[in-house]
């Protein structure tokens, strides 16, 4: 048994060494390409404008998040329309892994990176490295902090602050005489969760709507949203007239908790964010009243279009907000059913 183990370990070590050596060889080649591809002056000659295909990298915050997996698939599908080729990196929800993914993309000599950051502050040194290497930097979905705008060429995304405001306004419009609601937050500490809650809170607190309780989750997990709603139901019971959940998948859990408690979801006002399949279906079924949708197709295409423009030497707008979609039972027919 021991002899077999040693043989297996020996073979594995040789295999790892061969891969490492091959990898080293690739890196040497790519490393020489970086300044040629990356520099703004060099891009026109190197990519040959629209005639030569350039490689771009989408650094996905976490492929486990369905919206980001969908965005990744869109980059892969539509890159060729802009004479680009997309490679995808998965940061798996880890800010450190995301920074090293940026470095890996730099080493691979990509022309542009789009970063969907796990932590907008932790990613800044890696963005600086990309800028130093002359790579086009696009921020996707979440922008860099105020004051660090020079580290990116452009930002494309929805305004999560606006999403929070829209949610608050929806409650105010639906309950002109006031109401009592609860808030189930997204992943605590995530940029989207912070902005959605941060923008929702001041607007709602200036109205006659009382937020009975607000609790964030550890992850964007339906089950956690369900457990929090279970506890809210115990604590506030029939006082709850509406629920704001930071994402549609979480609202699915909220609806399950309300069903389990025998509460009528159709008599309540339920608002989610995302415009995902779950949200749109729930609006269609009448169990959700509003989903504030993100148009990932428009976001991905806009990112690719801006990259092509920069590669072709054009000046682009730095901050590009894609309008939010407000999907309600009245407007649902205006939207195509989402793919994620």
């Amino acid at each position, binding site marked *: *048994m*021991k002899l077999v*183990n040693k043989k*297996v370990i020996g073979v594995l070590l040789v295999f790892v060494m061969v891969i490492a050596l091959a990898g080293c060889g690739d890196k040497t080649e790519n490393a020489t390409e970086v300044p040629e591809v990356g520099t703004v002056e060099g891009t026109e000659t190197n990519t040959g404008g629209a005639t030569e295909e350039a490689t771009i990298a989408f650094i996905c915050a976490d*492929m*486990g*998040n*369905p919206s*980001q*997996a*969908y965005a*990744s*698939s869109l980059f892969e599908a539509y890159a060729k329309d802009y004479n680009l080729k997309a490679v995808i990196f998965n940061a798996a929800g880890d800010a450190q892994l995301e920074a090293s993914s940026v470095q890996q993309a730099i080493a691979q000599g990509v022309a542009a990176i789009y970063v969907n950051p796990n932590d907008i502050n932790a990613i800044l040194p890696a963005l600086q490295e990309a800028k130093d290497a002359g790579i086009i930097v696009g921020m996707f979905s979440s922008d860099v902090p105020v004051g660090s705008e020079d580290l990116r060429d452009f930002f494309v995304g929805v305004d999560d602050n606006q999403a929070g405001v829209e949610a608050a306004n929806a409650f105010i419009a639906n309950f002109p005489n006031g109401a009592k609601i609860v808030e189930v937050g997204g992943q*605590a500490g995530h940029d989207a969760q912070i902005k959605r809650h941060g923008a929702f809170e001041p607007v709602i607190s200036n109205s006659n709507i009382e937020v009975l*309780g607000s*609790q*964030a*989750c*550890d*992850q*964007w*997990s*339906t*089950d956690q949203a*369900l*457990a*929090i709603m*279970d*506890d*809210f*139901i*115990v*604590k506030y*019971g029939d006082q709850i007239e509406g629920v704001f959940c930071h994402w549609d*998948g979480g609202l*699915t*859990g909220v609806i*399950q908790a309300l*069903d*389990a*408690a025998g509460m009528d979801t159709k008599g309540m006002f339920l608002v989610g964010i995302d415009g*995902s*399949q*779950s949200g749109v*279906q729930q609006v269609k*079924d009448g169990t959700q009243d509003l989903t504030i949708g993100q148009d990932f197709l428009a976001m991905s295409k806009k990112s690719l279009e801006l990259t092509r423009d920069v590669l072709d030497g054009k000046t682009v707008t730095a901050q590009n907000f894609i309008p939010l979609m407000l999907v309600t039972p009245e407007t649902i027919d205006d939207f195509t059913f989402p793919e*994620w």
Partner: protein
Amino acid sequence: MTRQIRLGSVFNTLLKEYTIVIGIMVLVLITSIVEPRFMTSGNMINIMRQFGPLILVALGMTFVILAGFIDLSVTGQLFLVAVIVMKLIDPIGQIPAMLVGVAFGGLFGYFNSKVIIFSGALTQAEALFITYGLSTAYIGIGQMISNGKTMNMSIDLTSSYSMFQYVGLGFIGPFSISFVIFLVAIVILYFFQSKTYMGRSVMLTGGNKTAARIAGIPIYRSITIVYMICGIMTAIGAIVFMSRATTVTSAMSIGLETDVILAVVLGGTYLGGGRGSVLRTIIGALIVILISNCMNLLGITIFWQDITRGAILIIAIWLDAQKNN
């Protein structure tokens, strides 16, 4: 004087043995004073529902820890089984899909054990890293099958999922279905642990592997069996999880392994293996559920909840080590 010393010693032992239980009782007391709804039947049902999925996985983990190992792959296994079951509901029906899911759980457990045995990773630390790697792989496979999308029963299924709704929301008498599944599982697993040769072999393997081997205990078979039990229980947990939420995403089980290990250790099963019981894990799981239930009712933020859970795990392991030293 002697009597005083003895009383002091007994008090110290009790304090050491039950520090966490006393702490939780204080938390429960504070919660029931601050939030009278804590003691209502609605909250008891709520606790019972939340108890189901966690305890099922924790019971399986108890055997792995009893044998002196650990299984961090429960996170990945749970997600992958849920994806497989979801994909099979339309083509083969609800109950066959559940059964195939449970069979896959056993298969993943078998695979885990063979990887551990083949790689010669016979310490808990080695098993920890191997099963962590396997968990990542299982999540990757699950995401590949689901194309990274959230799978939602009401959208992705064309056939009925009433059986899952029954498992998620149904009751038999005063007990939720997940609680009934737990009762059946605990009876079988307790019988296995205390009344069968293999159950006792698991304990001996965890106590001292070398001595167990010399005594003729089939330790490799014990390892295979504990990982298979853990896989099967994780698969049953997956079915209960997905029945409750009616959706499947990789985020559904993130952090589960921490809560599961916390439940086993808080219950009093020795992390080093060889001592403990599935019955004790029930108390551990109840404590884990009560912590988040009480803190949610008290309006304590998720950050403090995480800090508390982490601190309790450290204290539990420290006390465990003190006791065994």
